[in-house]
């Protein structure tokens, strides 16, 4: 059964890539490419589901295929299977959406062939990362995933800045790979690279080596996941990539960083001292807060979403960090709760962030701009996209009864368990984490009121927005699947939580929590600490939404409705220029957090030559340089530039000089070989 699904997955992705290689143009070609991806992702999803439900890992070892370092070894355990399901949840809608979305590339703006091939290979590589069972396979697939996604980012390479974004992405992801390589070499400790061997030998490593491995892995996987301060590639690469690819990268690929961290820290190393957890927690809090704060200042819709990915990865890391802290204190049920919260948020983020990126893609498709200040009024022109985007916005703002709330609630509850910790230094940081997490979710709500309100509501702010049109059926279907996933995951935590408990059971000594989190219609934190039921809440809301108008009708409320001009203080001629803009919406928060943003502003006023009381034009521009660009990357880049300028002296372009270098090195080597 599982082997069939596995083969179908590989074959379908291969088929998709092959069709794309033949051209993949025209409606049929695009649909065939998408069909490959959909079937592959569907099979992967089913494959993962079967493994999770049966609890039986799937193994396949093909040493002959690659006769070094143990060859290609594949094994799918429930943890990997969960991430395979996440890939499926993100990939199916993205592929369907992509079939319609890529029509715009038919005019030669980008190579459909390259896009189709890379899209399918990217999905394949990601799926195989979750299956990898030795170091070689893991790193190969990891690199394959990075390379294919690099090509996907630079799809629209003719656009300004796309290649630059690609460079940032390639640099960050390869720096991460180098760290991972180091971590795995240390972990192997001269032995074999099979994960089973690593797991058994990890206990014999010295504490220093284990700490080093953990930090290297955290940084390596963190650079992929996009935690602060390694997040800088996200706001650059996501806007540049085609929207369905952004949805995949943001919704799914960065989650594999979470997978890698769990695999190494919890599974292979089997947990560690409590400062590991505290470090993860701290990075999570910083990512969540800085991510949402910079998102608030962003008026490029896709960059805004990219910053929100940083925020949500932060929330996931808070869950994982809490889990690791409890794990080190042997509070296993609480640890499981933290990890469950993190994993739940992982799949939730895959659904709502995927949905939001697809929505942003539809808007981009319809208006040709990513700048929110040029949108507005889209709710009337693209009602379906607006509805789906609204669902995504409410979900990411953690509003009940949607899915963001369910997972944030679990993360909160795991933090509230912090009072059971014996170590006061760490226990006292827990309240801070609670406060910051709450601030993050409040700011996220503010940010999505801005994102939805400014883009979709009120009057169109530009000609393009005025003439926007609804996107084609395929794109709407893609969004609808994810919107339904958001609702379903929000209503059914009682079903999801035990599944996640099963996924985690046995990892790093975690108990099977399925008996603790029972299968009634509510979710319990451990040992009856707290209990909610989003299902009943949703039902209550629904009943009231029906009941209130009915009662009003019964009470003979005046039901007349007249549509008139906007009042707006009786002014004549309501124009879009009078609307609140995204900049002005974010202004109060910019002032509140001015010490972080340090905005620079330029104001130039052009007066009328006759009188200073009449103004011809006012130009206002304000810029915010992100903190880490300012204090970390800019100095780093300057340093690299300075070094390269020095190096350039050596590289003078003269052939004789180069030959001389060769000769000098040769002589030096000979001398070294002879006398040392």
């Amino acid at each position: 059964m599982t082997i069939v699904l596995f083969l179908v997955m590989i074959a379908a992705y291969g088929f998709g890539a092959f069709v794309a290689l033949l051209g993949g143009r025209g409606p049929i070609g695009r649909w065939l490419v998408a069909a490959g991806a959909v079937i592959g992702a569907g099979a992967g999803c089913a494959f993962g589901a079967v493994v999770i439900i049966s609890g039986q890992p799937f193994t396949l070892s093909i040493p002959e295929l690659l006769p070094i370092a143990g060859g290609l070894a594949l094994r799918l355990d429930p943890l990997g299977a969960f991430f395979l399901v996440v890939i499926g949840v993100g990939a199916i809608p993205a592929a369907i959406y992509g079939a319609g979305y890529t029509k715009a590339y038919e005019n030669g703006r980008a190579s459909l062939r390259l896009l189709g091939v890379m899209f399918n290979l990217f999905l394949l590589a990601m799926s195989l990362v979750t299956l990898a069972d030795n170091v070689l396979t893991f790193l190969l697939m990891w690199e394959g995933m990075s390379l294919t996604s690099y090509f996907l980012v630079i799809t629209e390479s003719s656009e300004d800045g796309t290649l630059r974004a690609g460079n940032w992405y390639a640099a960050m992801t390869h720096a991460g790979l180098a760290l991972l390589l180091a971590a795995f070499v240390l972990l192997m400790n001269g032995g074999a690279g099979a994960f089973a061997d690593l797991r058994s030998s990890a206990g014999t490593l010295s504490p220093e080596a284990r700490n080093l491995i953990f930090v290297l892995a955290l940084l390596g996987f963190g650079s992929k996941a996009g935690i602060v301060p390694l997040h800088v590639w996200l706001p650059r690469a996501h806007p540049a990539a085609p929207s369905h690819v952004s949805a995949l990268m943001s919704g799914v690929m960065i989650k594999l960083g979470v997978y890698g961290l769990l695999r190494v820290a919890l599974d292979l190393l089997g947990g560690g001292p409590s400062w590991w957890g505290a470090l993860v927690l701290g990075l999570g809090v910083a990512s969540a807060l800085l991510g949402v704060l910079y998102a608030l200042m962003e008026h490029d819709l896709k960059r805004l979403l990219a910053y929100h990915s940083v925020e949500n990865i932060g929330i996931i890391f808070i869950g994982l960090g809490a889990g690791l802290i409890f794990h080190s204190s042997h509070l296993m049920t609480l640890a499981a709760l933290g990890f469950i919260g993190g994993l739940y948020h992982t799949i939730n983020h895959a659904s709502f962030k995927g949905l939001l990126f697809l929505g942003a893609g539809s808007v981009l498709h319809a208006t040709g701009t990513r700048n929110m200040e040029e949108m507005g009024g889209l709710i009337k022109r693209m009602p379906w996209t607006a509805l789906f985007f609204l669902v995504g916005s409410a979900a990411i703002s953690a509003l009940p009864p949607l899915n963001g709330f369910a997972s944030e609630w679990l993360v909160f509850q795991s933090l509230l368990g912090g009072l059971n910790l014996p170590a006061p230094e760490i226990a006292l940081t827990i309240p801070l984490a609670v406060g910051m997490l709450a601030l993050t979710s409040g700011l996220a709500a503010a940010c999505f009121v801005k994102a939805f309100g400014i883009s979709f509501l009120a009057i169109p702010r530009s000609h393009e927005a005025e003439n926007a049109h609804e996107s084609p059926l395929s794109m709407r279907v893609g969004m609808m699947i994810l919107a339904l996933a958001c609702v379903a995951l929000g209503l059914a935590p009682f079903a999801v939580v035990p599944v996640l408990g099963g996924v985690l059971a046995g990892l790093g000594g975690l108990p099977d929590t399925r008996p603790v989190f029972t299968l009634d219609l509510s979710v319990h934190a451990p040992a009856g600490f707290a209990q909610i039921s989003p299902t009943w809440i949703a039902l209550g809301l629904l009943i009231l939404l029906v009941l209130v108008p009915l009662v009003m009708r019964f009470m003979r409320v005046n039901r007349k409705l007249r549509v008139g001009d906007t009042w707006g203080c009786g002014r004549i001629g309501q124009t879009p220029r009078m609307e609140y803009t995204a900049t002005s919406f974010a202004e109060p928060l910019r002032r509140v957090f001015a010490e972080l943003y340090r905005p620079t502003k330029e104001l130039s006023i052009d007066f009328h030559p006759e009188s200073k009381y009449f103004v011809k034009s006012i130009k206002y521009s304000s810029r915010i340089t992100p903190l880490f660009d300012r204090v970390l990357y800019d100095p780093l880049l300057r340093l690299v530039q300075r070094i390269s300028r020095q190096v350039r002296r050596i590289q003078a372009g003269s052939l004789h000089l180069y030959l001389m270098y060769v000769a000098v090195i040769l002589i030096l080597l000979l001398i070294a070989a002879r006398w040392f």
Partner: protein
Amino acid sequence: MVITGYVLEIAQVILALLLAPGLAGFVRWLKARLQNRRGAPPWQPYFELRKLFGKEVVMSNNASWLFRIAPYIIFASTITVTLLVPMIVAPLALDGMGDLLMVVYLLLLGTFFLALAGLDPGTAFGGMGASREMTVAAIAEPTIALAIFGLALSAGSTNLGRIVTQELANTAVTLSPGHILAFVALFIVTLAETGRLPVDNPATHLELTMIHEAMILEYSGRYLALIEWASWLKLTIFFTLLSNLFVPWGIATTFDPAALAVAVIALIVKLAVLGGIIAVVETRVAKLRLFRVPELLGASFVLALLAVTSSFVLK
């Protein structure tokens, strides 16, 4: 017995709906008296509701379906909260349906849609109100979370029924510093969340100083009635939380009719006392500049943080 529980839930919702306008009216009346005016009688808001439900709606031509559905969502989410908050009896039949975090996020759901509805007609003031409301709501959030944390520490649960019963069982907690600090922190947040002075002036007519009012400038008739009722209900909910989570005395723990009657009276008395405090505060303080509001909320955050740490240390 089970049936009685559900009947009580419904009775409690109706009670809250009936009490809410009266509470708002009472505060207004007391404020008028403190301004040496005769003022409208406390039951004035009921007349206003009746009138608004009888009027037609005039809607902006820029607004979309969101503008029309938002009042119902705001109203429904606020009523759902009253299903969770123990007003006269604890624990409620539906106590397991949601905890304090659910209460906070359901209220945020209402705020979210209200802010969107403010942006929908495309007026400058609506956007301004939405922007300010979300700013205040976001900055108030950490205080609420920490106050919840503080309560959960002493009660061992975030479910409201559990907190109340725990406190009734262990009255020494009531006067502990952690508890008092958390109360003060939550009181400041109540002022911010329900749009009272010094954060927002509910009686202002000057658009530039508005927060809540600016968002609903374009609403009329039955929609306005729903939104106003919901905001009064929100005030009642926050007052009930303040009184029943921190001073739960008088609340019924059984379905005994006599106990329930006492509980209703106790609730009304507690709401009146808090309403009196609000009226006095509003008479005394001036509205803060918008950019000093974060300072106030920062102070409340620190109080909540101290509340949590002190109950942690004393544990």
